[in-house]
């Protein structure tokens, strides 16, 4: 197996330039939020105490960032060494995804200067789901940076730190698999507590399981999505063979999810509501149609080995999974008595800015640190690959 290498090359690219512009917007609105308070930037209110920063940046963003989780699970726990080249890019994306989710939480909590209390043992409330999520995500951010730290070790030749890392890396990986399993399901538990405020299409005691499953297949889909993009943009060679194997796993997980989802809706007698033509019913259908499109594409072996179909399926799954999480956290949530919420311009700019930071930092990191395993050019590789495909 070829070793991961920094890509090198030009740092300032048009992509990075656009990202920097959006980062500028982000900084402008973040400063405004910290100086003038959360109400000056957001449309949050007493009915919707959290909005797009939590629903997208934390809930959807952390599912997008589950690539590191599922790849670590595959390679280190299920011992599928063949996927090893995908681990580090996935970890990098996860690291940024989670770190920025943490930043987003910090922006979202009203009295951010009290945030340190989370880490004071005598302040901890072990009966709180929110505490579980906060603690898990807070810890997982550090774990991800440590999991990725071999790249720093290689870059700066930190041999001492490297040998120390080698000794503890098994614990990091164990934590890296345990923590997302805990908090991704807890993200579902959190909205379970919303009770009747959440539409019955999404409010079910299976929410924790549904959230865990969406995290898993969205993580895999993200690996395919992001891998396809980077392999084309950075000319890394064709990784379709690896992706199609992952796609096969996704089709099983997604299929399992769809069965549970519809059985759950049917069992609770809400299928009529889903097909009633109401706005929420349609949102439910849209969410599941997107997932179904992904499932149908990935279910066919021929389609699985076509990079275009793979990419379309990955996008459909990511959109469907995100819509499920958006529906649960904002769209299907009605606090009653006429509360309304739509993210303000400033609020959206912060979210776009965070995405831009993630993309920009990713493009810089892959050039500085050993993230990608470059393959030999596609053509000379093809003979070797055809039997697998």
């Amino acid at each position, binding site marked *: 197996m070829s070793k991961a290498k920094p890509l090198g090359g030009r740092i300032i690219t048009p992509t990075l330039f656009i990202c920097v512009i959006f980062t500028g917007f982000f900084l402008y609105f973040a400063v405004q939020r910290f100086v003038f308070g959360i109400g000056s930037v957001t449309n949050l209110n*007493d009915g919707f105490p959290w909005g797009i920063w939590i629903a997208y940046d934390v809930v959807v963003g952390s599912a997008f960032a589950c690539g590191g989780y599922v790849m670590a699970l595959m390679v280190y726990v299920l011992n599928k060494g063949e996927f090893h080249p995908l681990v580090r890019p996935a970890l990098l994306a996860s690291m940024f995804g989670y770190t920025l989710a943490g930043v987003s939480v910090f922006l979202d909590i009203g009295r951010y200067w009290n945030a340190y209390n989370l880490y004071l043992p005598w302040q901890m409330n072990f009966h709180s789901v929110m505490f579980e999520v906060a603690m898990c995500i807070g810890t997982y951010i550090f774990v991800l940076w440590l999991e990725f730290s071999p790249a720093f070790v290689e870059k700066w030749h930190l041999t001492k730190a490297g040998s120390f890392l080698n000794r503890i890396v098994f614990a990091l990986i164990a934590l890296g698999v345990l923590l997302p399993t805990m908090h991704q399901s807890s993200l579902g538990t959190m909205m379970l507590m919303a009770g009747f405020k959440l539409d019955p299409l999404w409010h079910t005691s299976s929410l924790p399981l549904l959230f865990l499953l969406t995290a898993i297949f969205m993580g895999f889909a993200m690996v395919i999505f992001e891998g396809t993009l980077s392999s084309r943009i950075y000319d890394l060679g064709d990784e379709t063979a690896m992706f199609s194997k992952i796609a096969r796993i996704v089709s099983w997980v997604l299929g399992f999810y769809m069965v549970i989802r519809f059985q759950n809706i049917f069992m609770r007698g809400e299928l009529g509501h889903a097909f009633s033509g109401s706005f929420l019913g349609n949102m439910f259908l849209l969410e599941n149609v997107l997932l179904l499109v992904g499932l149908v594409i990935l279910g066919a072996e021929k389609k699985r080995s076509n*990079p275009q179909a793979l*990419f379309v399926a990955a*996008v459909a799954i990511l959109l469907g999974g995100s819509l499920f999480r958006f529906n649960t956290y904002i769209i299907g949530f009605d606090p009653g008595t006429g509360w309304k919420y739509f993210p303000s311009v400033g609020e959206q700019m912060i979210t776009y800015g965070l995405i831009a930071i993630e993309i920009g930092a990713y493009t810089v990191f892959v050039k500085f640190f050993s993230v990608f395993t470059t393959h030999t050019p596609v053509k000379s590789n093809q003979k070797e690959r055809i039997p697998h495909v």
Partner: protein
Amino acid sequence: MSKEDSNTVKSRLGNVSRRDFMKFCSAVAATMALPGTVVPDIAHALTSPTRPPVIWLHGAECTGCSMSLLRSEHPTLEKLIFDLISLDFHETLSAGAGHQAEEALHRAVEDNYGKFILVIEGAIPLKNSGVFCRIAGKNFVDTVKDIGRKAGAIIAIGSCASWGGVAAMEPNPTGCVGVQEVLSDKQVVSIPGCPPNPYNLLSTIIHYLTFKKLPGLDQQNRPKFAYGRLIHEHCERRPHFDNGRFARSFGDEGHAKGYCLYYLGCKGPVTYANCSTNQFGDAGSGCWPVAIGHPCFGCAEKGVGFNVPQFTTSPVLHTTPGAGSAPITLERGEGASPGSAALMAGVAGAALGAGAVFTAKLGGKEVDHEDKKA
């Protein structure tokens, strides 16, 4: 408490029904903020065949604390002292007099040596060896020292017994002090107030009977369940304070409207007691001083009651942010504005477009591959 248990103690409960009795136990548990699960324990402790002996002594005081206890009705005092606890000696309620009463006291003390609950009401004069309060030919201070030594638990009821109260008011000619000062080597539970809420005493005694230990005490040995919070914190007139609506003199418009009495010298902001949450005794709701329009004078707080003049305003110990005025019409959030909707649509469109272009390019390459393979 099961029906059978109830029947065995029926004679002692008199006209109190099992239901009323359990309600009393629940109310006591609630006063101390204990969980409902201890209610049966309380019932058991109160109905056990050996009634806990209580000896009640009076010093330099007005018997107001006993009077307030007489007003408690859940159950009535006589049920409590004759049937639930064993009030073996109480000077005011005693039927006997003179030598007969004294003999009863000493017999009660000797019979229950080390077990009885000693309740002391009233301050203890120390000046001139304490000659200012003599009972049965003995200085009260000597009686307290003698009997206090033999008691299982000691409760000082009322402000006088707690720190001297009205009897120790400046210039304190008789040198009155509280019980703790005389029995400095013993733990004395203080239940200050002039008079204190009788349920604070009942709850303390019943806690001791149920759990065989005293409830949690603060630094001045007051039960935390009753004296843990400032009156001001839970005062029914607190919203007026937070919004700056004050009565400025008795009978003015603000006073008539029930505004905050802070500027009339209310000592609620410096007095730790549960008057604002438990009201007063069985007098009914709305019958504690602040509710009837009289500022609190801090009777339960050493150094405030009988010490700071009635109309002197007190410092506010814990300044908390005002609740602000609740708006009449509530803004219920904004929907999509043209700007925010356009931004979201634009970004989503751009992302979709980029995705479509990329997908198309992917397709192109793939066709190439397939062509080549073919």
